[in-house]
């Protein structure tokens, strides 16, 4: 039964056609799915980062450069950066969608967050590549 123009009338449709017309299961599903895929990737990558954090945060310039120039460190760090920035952006989007109720503030914050994390992610990846190839 669907309502239009105040009149109620019956539609002839199969259950499948009706199910297809309900809900979205398009971009929202992809958002949810990629949050899980990046989460799965981040399990080993975060553990790796926890072990290697001193190499970036406390090491000398020469030590840190040497660490970053190792192909395996560079590749693993690039994979971590991709998954982490993607996951961070998806998570922040959900938080903003849930808690920001202002009709102007919500889209502004969503767009700003996307720009900020895409920008910072590209900068970090560029920096790793520069150390390895410049």
């Amino acid at each position, binding site marked *: 039964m669907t309502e239009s123009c105040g009149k109620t009338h019956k539609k002839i449709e199969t259950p499948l056609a009706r199910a297809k017309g309900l809900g979205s299961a398009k971009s929202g599903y992809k958002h949810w799915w990629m949050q899980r895929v990046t989460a799965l990737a981040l399990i080993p990558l*975060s553990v790796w980062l*926890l072990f290697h*954090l001193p190499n970036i945060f406390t090491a000398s*310039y020469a030590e840190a450069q040497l660490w970053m120039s190792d192909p395996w460190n560079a590749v693993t760090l690039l994979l971590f950066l991709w998954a982490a920035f993607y996951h*961070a952006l998806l998570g922040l989007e959900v938080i903003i969608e849930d808690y920001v109720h202002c009709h102007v503030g919500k889209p502004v914050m969503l767009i700003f967050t996307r720009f900020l994390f895409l920008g910072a992610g590209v900068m970090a990846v560029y920096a790793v590549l520069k150390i390895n190839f410049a």
Partner: protein
Amino acid sequence: MKQRPLSPHLQVYRPQITSVLSILHRITGAGLTGGLLLLGWGIWSLSHSAEAYQCFTECMAHPLGKLVTIGFIWALCYHLLNGIRHLFWDAGLGFKMAAVNASGWVTVIASFVLTAVFACLYFY
């Protein structure tokens, strides 16, 4: 329009292990996005110059920087462990109340143990 209560509903319910860990997952997640930008700054400074990198490591060596680092390690350990819990739920496993409470406490305790381990690795 009638003003109805909106999420996050934190003020409505009595705190329980399930709800507290749930909101902690979001809080640590939001905090970790800041930590990720900090990591990005470190990598960027390393690619830029020795002076820029020194500026970054000096900030991290400051007592406030150390506090942020320990906070980052704990947030990462907690979010990682609780995230694994969430992935099990997504797979339809561990939904019995006893299992939910037990995995919750394991997550809390393990997050502090791991933080101690990685903080030692980090500072010594």
